[in-house]
């Protein structure tokens, strides 16, 4: 008897496997047996409309802060109380790059979530998969949305408008006798003066082990210098966009000057964002260039913010030049057209922006992207903005298909380049020339005119 039972178990196991493998030909059987296995592991596997009318929306986000607030403010429960027939399952990606990768894979296998919080450049990348939201009433309340329309379609509603800041410790500035710089050269001099006054002080903390941390210089500064928020798109139109005289060439040389001043501390490439922020929070560094949400990391580090101040990065050569600052939107909520519950997803979006967002945005160090929701920035940030009434906001856009394709073909990775430029002996002019010739070739290979 006993051995018979064992054999039965063996047969059962084999049958399970075979049925799973039958799917090699793509049968329906396979996915159901797969689901039953996975179901044992996760309570919330997607089983649309299995129990009555209840619909589950999958909402993929990358923003850790958002995820934390969702949990703390119990967003899902709030929504379910208002809409008992819909539930939302939050999926958290490690970061935006990770999210993009997983979306690519999931697009190929028709496994996309219903809702997503996009980075601006993803709107264009996934434009074939996103629902046009132009006719939603909500779109009318978000003046920036039209700015980021792709082929005339509004593919996502941002929740916040970002600004970049240079955070600094006022007491340290006083101690070293330096003041807020007005031009790029002054910015470099300020950093150098700090270094001279105290060799142990890191003038500007940078955590370049995480490549994305170079974005203020490598991604945003070119648009300011070129005065073109659509710089990436424009570059897709040119054969030699890195040539001398172009905005990107000029701004990368400005960054090169900053690197040459050696003001990022002893080993910027050996530490990540977190460590750099810890240094700044402990006042072991005097400045930090980051968007408003950097303050959140400082709070998590229990930093004493009483002497924290900020100013806008002076990306200009002389005081007679216009003072341009970056403006960008983030966290575009979008709906995938592969979703079986587009209407429910829209209901969620309306609810989110109507009932959840007004409270949520107050906790975020960014401006509100929705016109009828007021948001005052933290005094540290608001002061910096107010002190520059002359600032011209350049609205940044993430680039289009052509640019993305050329970028893939030439492996132009500006954030990585920002790190490479920190390595001793790096030849920027040579690299820009190489990029130009690769760019020309890629454009002709891809048939872009």
């Amino acid at each position, binding site marked *: 008897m006993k051995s018979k039972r064992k054999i039965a178990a063996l047969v059962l196991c084999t049958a399970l496997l075979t049925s799973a*493998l039958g799917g090699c030909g793509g049968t329906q059987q396979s996915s159901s047996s797969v689901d039953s296995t996975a179901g044992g592991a996760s309570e919330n596997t997607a089983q649309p409309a299995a129990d009555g009318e209840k619909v589950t929306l999958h909402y993929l986000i990358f923003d850790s802060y958002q995820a934390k607030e969702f949990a703390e403010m119990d967003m899902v429960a709030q929504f379910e109380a208002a809409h008992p027939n819909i539930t939302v399952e939050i999926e958290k990606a490690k970061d935006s790059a990770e999210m993009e990768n997983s979306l690519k894979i999931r697009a190929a296998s028709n496994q996309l979530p219903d809702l997503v919080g996009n980075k601006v450049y993803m709107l264009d990348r996934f434009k074939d998969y996103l629902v046009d939201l132009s006719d939603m009433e909500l779109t009318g309340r978000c003046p920036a949305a039209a700015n980021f329309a792709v082929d005339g379609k509004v593919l996502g509603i941002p929740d916040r408008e970002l600004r970049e800041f240079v955070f600094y410790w006022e007491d340290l500035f006083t101690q070293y006798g330096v003041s807020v710089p007005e031009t790029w050269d002054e910015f470099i001099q300020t950093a150098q003066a700090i270094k001279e006054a105290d060799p142990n002080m890191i003038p500007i903390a940078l955590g370049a082990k995480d*490549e994305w941390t170079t974005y203020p210089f490598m991604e945003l500064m070119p648009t300011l210098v070129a005065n073109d928020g659509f710089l990436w798109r424009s570059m897709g139109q040119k054969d030699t966009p890195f040539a001398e005289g172009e905005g990107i060439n000029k701004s990368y040389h400005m960054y090169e000057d900053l690197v040459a001043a050696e003001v990022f501390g002893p080993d910027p490439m050996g530490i990540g964002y977190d460590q750099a922020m810890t240094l700044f929070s402990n006042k072991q560094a005097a400045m930090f260039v980051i968007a408003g949400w950097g303050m959140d990391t400082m709070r998590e580090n229990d930093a004493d913010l009483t002497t924290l101040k900020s100013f806008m990065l002076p990306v200009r050569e002389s005081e007679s030049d216009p003072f341009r600052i970056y403006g960008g939107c983030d966290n575009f909520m979008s709906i995938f057209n592969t979703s079986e519950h587009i209407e429910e997803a829209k209901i969620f979006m309306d609810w989110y922006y109507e009932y959840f967002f007004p409270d949520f945005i107050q906790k975020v160090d960014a401006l509100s992207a929705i016109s009828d929701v007021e948001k005052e920035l933290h005094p540290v940030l608001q002061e910096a903005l107010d002190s520059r009434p002359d600032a011209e906001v350049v609205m940044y856009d993430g680039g289009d298909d052509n640019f993305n394709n050329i970028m893939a073909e030439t492996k132009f990775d500006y954030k990585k380049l920002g*790190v490479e430029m920190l390595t001793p002996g790096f030849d920027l002019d040579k690299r820009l020339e190489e990029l130009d010739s690769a760019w020309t070739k890629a454009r002709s290979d891809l048939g872009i005119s």
Partner: protein
Amino acid sequence: MYRLSTKRSVFIGLSLFIPVILLLCFVIYPALDLLRMSFYRWDGVSVEQTFIGLDNYVRLFKESPDLWLSLRNNLIYFVIHTLFIPLELMFAVMLTKKLRGSNIFKSLTFMPYIVNGVAIAYAFSYFYSPINGAFNNILTLLGLENWIRNWLSDPAIVNLTLASVSVWRYSGYHVVLFFAALQSIPNDILEAATIDGAGAWQQFWRIQLPSISLVIDFTLFQNVRGALQMFDIPFVMTSGGPGYASSTFTLFTLDTAFKFDSFGMASTMAIAIIVLIVLVTLVQNKVVAVARRKGGFS
């Protein structure tokens, strides 16, 4: 007899069916598809795949300097690990001396191979950290302050740092392999040699080394594969940075596929690495065979 052999065929057929299908679907077919895709341009998402013949292969050689830089990094892992093999052998010989506590030391040496690789990578990120890092502290303690470097960000050093982590992780594995092979040598042979007046060194060279040559071959082969496929340590500790300074072939290939959406190109690289593994193994086998003949043992 006829009935028996039918039964037999049924048994063989049923037993081998699942493993073979699994192998075909998830190993062999992907490998063949890899070969096919290496002749296409494909971004991994769109339906369209363009046949471009040998273009990817041409570009592999002409326009991918960073790939070759990555391959050089693989070479660094290979060289360092190879240099450690004699040391590992010596350590294994010491373990066979049956001293008190040698079992504990054996267990300890092997432990790094067992613990979670990602956990190890984080532990060493902290160990080599430039700010209040343990390794720099040890150097300071030993009075070697001026040896302090940017371990994880100096392009000239970062690969050595990462290779040291790899050595820490895999050396114990080699030691245990050698140890087991050494133990399988019958004791009386060694005793006979001792009586004949052979010193420890002669014993090692004439008896122990030849008897474990198979395991050494295996270790060398694993070393080639391991070094050419090195992935998780640089992935977690530096993501291949700064720039591509600590990237490896696998890391670069995966970047090409997932970050730059060039699945065709990535397939070409994958084919290249398979060919490379086979080539290096063949050459290595030749070299080992020649060395063995010259060394006078078979």
